[in-house]
């Protein structure tokens, strides 16, 4: 049963130490709930283990800078055309977070394993990369049994405690529409629960529209939804709105230093009321 929540109630469903899955922040398929991310920071969470599916930028960087994160795995993390993810780069250098080196298809395979209730998944390529060596305590190379003589990498399932996404539409039955967003889909299927903010209510049942049906994330996966127009800001959100370039530049500049980042958090996160 999907609950309707305000953003602070939604954020309250994430706990210290959780494995938290975040979808990509790249291009017009970004689906990041920035409004809920600010609520997570206000909540003062600690020791989150972030799984970026498979990439992130300002969202993961803010959580890291705010001291919410213990470990992170990703294919890529940066502010894209605004440069490196400054809090991430700084935190790993100071040893404040543990970076579990990974790559996009390994994360995809690990979530696919969890989605199917499997303990692991083979994935092609990657052999010969130092990532395999750096993950040697978890990853394993076996010989293909069908037929032998073909080494192949196994990655264990990743089952996030929570997936946090932003969607264009939700209906009163708790279904949300994610379109062809494969990042959000595999993440939500793999996670124990999905928390979603969304732009607009859909009148009726999303499953009644055959054009939309294959892009619906059914209510059974969705623990809570919160109606948050412009919930991806300052990131863009598909056809809905472009990223706020000025705000992104502001963040990229201020997050370069501890003091700048602290003042950014104060102004944009702590001293604002976003309860809707």
């Amino acid at each position: 049963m999907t609950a309707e929540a305000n953003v602070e109630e939604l954020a309250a469903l994430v706990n210290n130490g959780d494995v938290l899955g975040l979808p990509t922040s790249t291009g017009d398929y970004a689906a990041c709930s920035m409004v809920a991310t600010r609520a997570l920071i206000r909540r003062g969470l600690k020791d989150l283990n972030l799984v970026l599916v498979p990439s992130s930028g300002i969202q993961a960087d803010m959580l890291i800078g705010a001291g919410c994160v213990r470990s992170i795995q990703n294919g890529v993390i940066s502010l894209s055309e605004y440069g490196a993810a400054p809090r991430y780069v700084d935190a790993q250098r100071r040893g404040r977070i543990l970076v579990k080196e990974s790559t996009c298809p390994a994360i995809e395979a690990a979530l696919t394993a969890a989605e199917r209730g499997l303990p692991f998944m083979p994935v092609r390529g990657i052999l010969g990369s130092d990532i395999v060596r750096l993950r040697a305590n978890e990853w394993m190379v076996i010989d293909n049994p069908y037929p032998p003589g073909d080494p192949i990498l196994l990655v264990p399932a990743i089952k996030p405690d929570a997936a946090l996404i932003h969607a264009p539409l939700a209906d009163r039955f708790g279904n949300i529409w994610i379109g062809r967003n494969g990042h959000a889909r595999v993440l939500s299927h793999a996670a124990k629960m999905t928390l979603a903010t969304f732009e607009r209510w859909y009148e009726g049942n999303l499953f009644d529209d055959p054009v939309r049906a294959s892009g619906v994330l059914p209510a059974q996966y969705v623990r809570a939804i919160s109606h948050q127009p412009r919930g991806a800001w300052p990131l863009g959100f598909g056809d809905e709105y472009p990223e706020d370039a000025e705000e992104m530049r502001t963040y990229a500049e201020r997050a370069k230093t501890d003091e700048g980042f602290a003042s950014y958090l104060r102004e944009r996160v702590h001293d604002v009321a976003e309860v809707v």
Partner: protein
Amino acid sequence: MISERLLFIGTLTRLLAGRRHVFIGGASPAPATAALLARALSGETLEITALGDKRYLFLSNDYSEIFNCAANGRYDAFFMGGGQIDGQANINLIGIGKHPTLEVRWPGSRGTPMLYMMIPNTVLFVEEHTRRVLVPRVDYISACGTSDARVHRPGGPIALVTPRCVFSFSRERGRFKLESVNPGHSAAEVSEHTGFDYDVATQLQQTPAPSRSMFEMLNARVLNEVSVIYPQFTRSLQEDVRVEFAAAVAN
């Protein structure tokens, strides 16, 4: 003298001749331009899958389906950069320093550890041709240039394009070969700025400038197509094309 960027795009475009389906990752404006140009010049036979805008992403699932397509051999061309590249065509997108607290931390390996091994005819490129980028041995291997014979590896590198020259890569020898030097540069200069050993073609060429038809297609159509994904890049490229046309008229 032709702009470095136009020469670079022209070289990438030529390296796509005869390909079936090119995959372009995110944050890759010059490769995306080359792909769109190669498609226009191919009479629309080249297929493109490019991250960044839905108009170039013909997938019903924008994540899993990319790796599924790569593993099934549906792509036969790919472009890949690296913070460091070594003489065995290993690339480093991780960083420099002692893991896990790296002094230099790059954004990450992305999909390269798989895509480099699955997609044939991968073209490596760097925007800076120096000994700090082209190194004897990368600090970390994000994706390896060659694999031993037992490893399933349909993909791999065929070339490395830099602002100074074009190398080919031999899978059998596991080495680069200098094929052509860009106008205004020399083989001696390439050697001075390259940190790894490589072979040199017996008939060393000058890298050819983009053809007239490339310019015309770029101007008439492709700039428009690229601007959908990379508006800022397109604006500066437009200026390069304008200068080039003005020079052609003056001559």
